[in-house]
C-alpha cells in the first residue's frame, strides 16, 4: 500500500490569525524569540496498492482542487510506496 502525505499551508502573503494567536500563546507560556507561527493542515491518505499512473495524476489534481485552495494556499505532496 501507499501512504500519501499532503501538507497545506496558507501562502506567505495571506494573514494567518490562528498562527498569530498561537504565537501569542507560546510567548505567554515563556517561549522566547518566536518570530512567526504559521498553522497548516496535514492529510495522511492510505491507499491500497501503489500510487502510480492515472491515480497519481488524480491524487495530485485533487490535492490542488479539494485539499487546498490555490487562491490562498500552497501544498506539498509526498508518497511513501
Amino acid at each position, binding site marked *: 500500500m501507499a501512504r500519501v502525505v499532503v501538507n497545506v499551508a*496558507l501562502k506567505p502573503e*495571506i*494573514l494567518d*490569525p*490562528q498562527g*498569530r*494567536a498561537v504565537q501569542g500563546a507560546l510567548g505567554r507560556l515563556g517561549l522566547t524569540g518566536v518570530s512567526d507561527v504559521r498553522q497548516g493542515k496535514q492529510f495522511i491518505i492510505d491507499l491500497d496498492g501503489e500510487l502510480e499512473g492515472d491515480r497519481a495524476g488524480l491524487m495530485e489534481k485533487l490535492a490542488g482542487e*479539494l*485539499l487546498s*485552495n490555490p*487562491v*490562498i494556499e500552497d501544498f506539498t505532496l509526498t508518497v511513501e510506496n
Partner: protein
Amino acid sequence: MDARIGVVTFPGSLDDADAARAIRIAGATPVALWHGDANLHDVDAVVLPGGFSYGDYLRCGAIAKFAPVMSLIIEKAQVGLPVLGICNGFQILCESHLLPGALTRNDHQHFICRDQKLRIESTETLWTTDFAPGQEIIIPLKNGEGGFVASEAILDELFAENRVIATYLDGNPNGSYRDIAGISNKAGNVVGLMPHPEHAVEELTGPTTDGIPFFTSVLKSLVGAS
C-alpha cells in the same frame, strides 16, 4: 409572471428559511433545492444561503462546491443564471471559482454578529439594480471567516470593472481587503455578499428592510427577459 427562485439547502445550511421568506416578500416563489438534486426544477435564479455547509470542514464552502446540485448551478451560472451567494454562499461561489478571491478567517479572530452599515458601490449587477448608486444600507452581518482576500491585481480589476458591489462603512468587521463586502462576476449575474440581506426584509425581525432590493432587483431582470 411567477418567478421561481431556488434556495439550496446543504447539510449545515442555516439561513435557507429566511432566504425563502425574503424571496416570498419580494414577490417571487421560493423553490427548495436539495444539495443532492440532479436537476434545478426550472428555477429562474438561485440563492446560496448562509450557514455552515458540511460543517465548514476542510474550508468553508470547499465541500459544497462538489455537491451534485452545485455542478448544475456552476454550469448554468456560466451562461447567465442569476446566482446570489450570501455569507457561506459567497464562500461557496469563491471556492467554485465563479467569483475570484477567497474568504479567510477574520483578522481579529472573533466571530462577529452585528448590524453593519454598507455602501452600495455597483447597481449594475442583476441583484443590485433597485438600489441607488452610493446608497447606504444597514443589514445584519455574522461571520467568523469573512475576510475577503485576493491579489492586488484582482482587487484593482474588481474596482476598475465596477464589480465591487458593496463596501463596509463605519469599521471593517473582518479584515476584508479594501473594505470589500460583496463582489460580482464579469457578467453581473453572479453576486457574493458576506452580510445578510435576507435578515433585513421585515421591520418586526430585522434592523431595517434594506435587504429587500437585492431580491426585487433580480425579479426585474427576470421580467425583462421573459
